[in-house]
């Protein structure tokens, strides 16, 4: 506890705000009811910064930065929305939709999906890029849950919650770039996993219909995440 954390003053969308220098722009923005859309970020898990939906503009910095991984500094001037940011967010969502087979109408998470609601929020009315239509498998080997790779956005929330909260580290990311894929154990079917505790935390934090409970029909999968702030509070984890 020797290091002193300073409180700094910065501006977000021309509004003067204060934050600790170990807090992210996203945290401080949300404390002040300034909305920044997110996808891979989930309160209670470590930051990852991969989806780039939360991109913000910082005066004097030539490129956009992810709000979840950018920390407060004295005198910082932040804009959370401009034409460039809006266009980037739309492009990212279009890339995600074109990359795999996200068919909302026949998804168990229809109506309760973060990718779907982000698309609406960011004004994605169609995907201008050609769809890839890749051939991904659906892993139904687990007796309680299912992993539909067609609907995965590689946010890694499942990997983080399993490692950081459950402590089992069943999930990992295999391969790179367009071939990247979430795997259980050393790429064994989920049902054969020797490390999975069947807790279902990965299912509950998944933003889409990739990790789901078996036995759910279209639009029936609603994720329950109350365990996350509860466990963090009980364990004394902050930030």
């Amino acid at each position, binding site marked *: 506890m020797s290091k002193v954390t300073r409180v700094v003053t910065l501006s977000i969308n021309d509004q003067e705000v204060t934050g600790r220098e170990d807090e992210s722009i996203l945290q401080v923005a949300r404390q002040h009811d300034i909305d920044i859309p997110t996808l891979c970020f989930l309160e209670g898990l470590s930051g990852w910064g991969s989806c780039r939906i939360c991109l913000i503009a910082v005066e004097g910095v030539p490129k956009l930065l992810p709000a979840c991984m950018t920390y407060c500094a004295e005198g910082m001037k932040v804009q959370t929305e401009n034409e460039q940011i809006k266009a980037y967010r739309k492009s990212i969502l279009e890339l995600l939709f074109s990359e795999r087979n996200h*068919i909302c*109408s*026949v998804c168990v998470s229809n109506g309760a999906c973060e990718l*779907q609601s982000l*698309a609406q929020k960011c004004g994605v009315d*169609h*995907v201008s890029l050609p*769809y890839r*239509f890749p*051939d991904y498998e659906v892993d139904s080997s687990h007796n309680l849950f299912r992993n539909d790779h067609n609907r995965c956005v590689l946010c890694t929330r499942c990997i983080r919650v399993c490692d950081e909260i459950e402590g089992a580290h069943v999930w990992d990311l295999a391969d790179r770039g367009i071939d990247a894929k979430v795997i259980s154990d050393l790429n064994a079917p989920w049902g054969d996993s020797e490390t999975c505790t069947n807790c279902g935390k990965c299912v509950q934090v998944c933003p889409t219909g990739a990790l789901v409970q078996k036995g759910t029909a279209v639009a029936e999968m609603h994720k329950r995440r109350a365990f996350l702030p509860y466990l963090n509070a009980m364990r004394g984890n902050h930030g």
Partner: protein
Amino acid sequence: MSDTITKIKVATIWIDGCSGCHMSFLDIDERILDLAPHIDMVYGPLVDLKEIPEGLDLVIVEGAVANEADLHHVLELRKKSKFMIALGDCAVSGNVPSMRNPIGQEACFERAYFENADTGQQIPTNGVPALLKNAIPVHQAVKVDLFIQGCPPPADAIFFVLSELVAGRVPDPTKVTRFGA
């Protein structure tokens, strides 16, 4: 609204979809009477006309472009129209018809016409248009001016968009519908 009402010439088409979007359009119920003075329905599943007429103001497309006839129809409709709407997720994104794409045509034919056929196992070729390799959204075949998402888009969303259009405004349908709505 001006005193002298000029009717806009509207065509609709049902290609690779389930007709649910047309049903949802009819679900605007008595509000169709508000649109009727402004719209002249000249072609589509609700009209008995075999040839696509010239000089269309608005074309509403339901369904994905999945075979050669679909492609032929949207190309002709686009050529003859000023404004084209992709209505519903099949037209906007490919939706359910596009679920065959990763599987491949051969495997689909095998399942449909051999594995699941007790008699007369053969791939139909007479009187049916050839399938395209992939079922694609309409905007990947021709230019689309407005996208109404949903499976089907809610009747309220369709009415909102059409009444805005006849009033001379181009609305943002994402305010009233979304993918899978």
